[in-house]
């Protein structure tokens, strides 16, 4: 039996999926966590698929299209529809459309422990004619109850809401008999969707048309809301006497007054600053402990009585490489704990409202804040999360901006370099600011060259405030820490060994013990001069950067296997310049493939070029300023003042042109 788990966004579908299938799929107290269908077997006979949240079977975003296509054409035997107990009236709107589409449905009323009044599920089941199951996180695993209800639903004939026999719908049925045959959907459903001018149905009827031809327009009803009014009337009748009048939500209102009031933006900035300070400072003692442990293990490996090359492979290749990255596990784990707490509490969704005005200036929407904060953990996941953003331009721009927000792997590089050179935690914070500033600058330029005239039509539901669940937060942290360890155990381990071989073997002799004759030196020396103006024109630094494209953690493992920072960087200025370059240069392979998937291959290549140029320019500017500052301060000030003057002239010119264009458009109108 094939079962689809569907419903509105943020009603707990994935949490239920995890409980039924004993999986660990990502969950969160915000909309759009699930962006693709995910399937898993339950026993031998059942295949359960978790679908992204949607408000109706008329799709508007990419994730809603996935849900609609799966439900209508996925060949599922039963749809398990999840609704939230405090939002039944709205949540049942899509449920009713499943009935219209002739689907066999089980209704799961979730979050029963948060019900703001009594709910009579037995009465609701009788009224709707489908099995109804009540669940909550505090109850036991509802797997057996839901599967039993699905079996009952699979045996029953699909329920037809009574309004489908309305004369207005019946009169239209004849027109859609052919379309019903070809799509396998009931003619009543096609009639209702045609009245609503649904593009997907128009395409099915008209063969490739987007619903704009005269024939399609003739299907649309004069009263486009007729189907919706029928559905809400049906839901109203079904819920009469089922729900007790809900209590007010005073606590949420009080919290909103503080978090969304006049101090909303400063509070958000303070929260993010606190996240970084805690991540950096709280992780230090554990990192030092792991670091000394790595050194001891490496020393033990050097004392083993075996061939020199084996000792070097173990100590300088594997232990230094893998250990060099593992040292930053505490910081990575703390960052994930804090961001998971923010997401699970419901605060992250409020951030979308707080930052909407600000992001609009750069052609993004407030929804971009989710993806950018997710990007602090993993850029690839964050790029995929942009699917939930409505408006093509805003979606593409957010995906473009995400990799500039340093991920947890880059945090390891910043922390290692600033730790070695005794730089303050502000250098790490400055890297995050730099990444965001460069992204915003580029978005501003993009917006000026090609303004986004499409309003993304943001209407985004706010999830309720919840005390973060320890189980959910630990699950998020465990999944991400495990992914980090998996990368260290696979990519970092492999790259460490490959790099050790390339750096310790030469074409002329077998084992050369590193140095200037190594294979890596031969290759990297070709590219190294390009980076000389940035202060790190050594083959070792270039080799570390090249491997960083596979995964950013490998930058540190490679530097460690070369003998540490002192062997790679000639000065503190060169090390900071390298940090800036690492902060901005090409995203890792996983992020690039996510970008190619969401925005296209061309866009991924463009991203590589933009990141490389931005990284080069920023590092060049920093390094040369730092070097010449000690030689001739006046000259440096004059150069920067000139740059600022030219930038101001360009910005003012662009603003004037924009204003004139806007006036001309206003005059035309």
């Amino acid at each position, binding site marked *: 039996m094939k079962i689809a788990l569907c419903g509105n966004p943020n009603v707990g579908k994935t949490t239920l999926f995890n409980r039924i299938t004993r999986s660990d799929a990502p969950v969160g107290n915000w909309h759009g966590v699930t962006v693709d269908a995910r399937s898993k077997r339950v026993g031998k006979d059942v295949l359960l698929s978790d679908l992204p949240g949607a408000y109706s079977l008329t799709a508007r975003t990419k994730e809603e299209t996935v849900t609609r296509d799966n439900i209508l054409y996925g060949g599922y035997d039963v749809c398990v529809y999840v609704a939230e107990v405090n939002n039944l009236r*709205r949540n049942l709107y899509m449920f009713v459309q499943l009935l219209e589409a002739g689907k066999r449905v089980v209704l799961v009323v979730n979050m029963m422990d948060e019900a703001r009044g009594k709910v009579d599920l037995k009465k609701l089941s009788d009224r709707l004619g489908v099995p109804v199951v009540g669940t909550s996180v505090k109850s036991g695993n509802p797997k057996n109850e839901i599967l039993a209800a699905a079996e009952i639903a699979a045996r029953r004939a699909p329920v037809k809401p009574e309004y489908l026999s309305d004369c207005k719908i019946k009169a239209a049925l004849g027109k859609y008999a052919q379309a019903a045959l070809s799509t396998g959907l009931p003619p009543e459903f096609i009639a209702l969707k045609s009245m609503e001018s649904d593009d997907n149905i128009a395409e099915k009827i008209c063969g490739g048309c987007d619903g704009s031809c005269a024939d399609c327009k003739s299907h649309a009803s004069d009263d486009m809301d007729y189907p919706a009014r029928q559905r809400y009337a049906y839901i109203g009748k079904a819920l009469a006497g089922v729900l007790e009048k809900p209590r007010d939500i005073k606590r949420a209102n009080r919290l*909103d007054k503080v978090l*969304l009031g006049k101090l909303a933006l400063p509070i958000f900035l303070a929260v993010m600053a606190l996240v970084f300070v805690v991540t950096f400072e709280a992780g230090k003692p554990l990192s030092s402990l792991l670091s000394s442990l790595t050194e001891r293990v490496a020393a033990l490996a050097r004392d083993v009585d075996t061939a020199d090359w084996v000792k070097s492979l173990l100590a300088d290749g594997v232990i230094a490489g893998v250990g060099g990255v593992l040292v930053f596990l505490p910081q990575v784990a703390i960052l994930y704990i804090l961001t998971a707490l923010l997401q699970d509490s419901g605060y992250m969704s409020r951030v979308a409202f707080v930052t909407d005005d600000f992001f609009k200036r750069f052609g993004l929407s*407030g929804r971009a804040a989710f993806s950018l904060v997710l990007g602090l953990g993993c850029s690839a996941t964050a790029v995929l999360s942009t699917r939930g953003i409505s408006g093509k331009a805003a979606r593409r721009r957010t995906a473009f901006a995400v990799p500039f927000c340093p991920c947890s792997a880059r945090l390891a590089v910043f922390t290692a370099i600033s730790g070695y050179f005794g730089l303050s935690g502000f250098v790490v914070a400055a890297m995050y600011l730099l990444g965001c500033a460069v992204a915003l600058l580029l978005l501003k330029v993009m917006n000026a060259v090609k303004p986004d005239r499409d*309003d993304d039509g943001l209407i985004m539901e706010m999830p309720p405030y919840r005390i973060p669940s320890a189980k959910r937060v630990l699950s998020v942290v465990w999944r991400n820490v495990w992914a980090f360890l998996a990368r260290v155990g696979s990519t970092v381990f492999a790259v460490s060994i490959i790099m050790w071989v390339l750096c310790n073997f030469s074409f002329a002799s077998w084992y050369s013990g590193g140095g200037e004759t190594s294979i890596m030196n031969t290759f990297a020396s070709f590219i190294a001069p390009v980076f000389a103006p940035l202060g790190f024109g050594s083959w070792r630094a270039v080799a570390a950067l090249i491997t960083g494209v596979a995964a950013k953690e490998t930058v540190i493992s490679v530097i460690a296997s070369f003998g540490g920072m002192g062997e790679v960087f000639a000065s503190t200025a060169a090390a900071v310049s390298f940090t800036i370059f690492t902060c901005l240069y090409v995203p890792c392979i996983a992020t690039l493939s996510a970008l190619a998937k969401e925005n296209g291959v061309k866009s991924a290549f463009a991203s590589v070029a933009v990141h490389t140029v931005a990284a080069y320019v920023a590092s060049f500017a920093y390094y040369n300023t730092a070097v010449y500052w000690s030689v001739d301060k006046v000259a440096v000030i004059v150069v920067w003042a000139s740059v600022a003057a030219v930038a101001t002239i360009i910005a003012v010119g662009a603003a004037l042109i924009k204003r004139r264009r806007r006036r001309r458009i206003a005059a035309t109108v």
Partner: protein
Amino acid sequence: MTLLDCKAQDGGTVRAIGGDRETHRRLVDMGLLDVAYDVKFKRKRSMLVDFRGEFSAVVTSAVAAQIEVSKR
């Protein structure tokens, strides 16, 4: 009058939903037809509105301008 004309703390009922086909559908699908509303916060480009005391949503100014309301 439209929802955009309301100030923070204003309340009333959604009377009709305009806008292009897609926006209209979206708002109807979200359950905004004929519901009571209360504006909680208003900013330059968006507002936070409580609908029916059941859920809150961020509504951009462009969308708010498409929602016809009658004030309490």
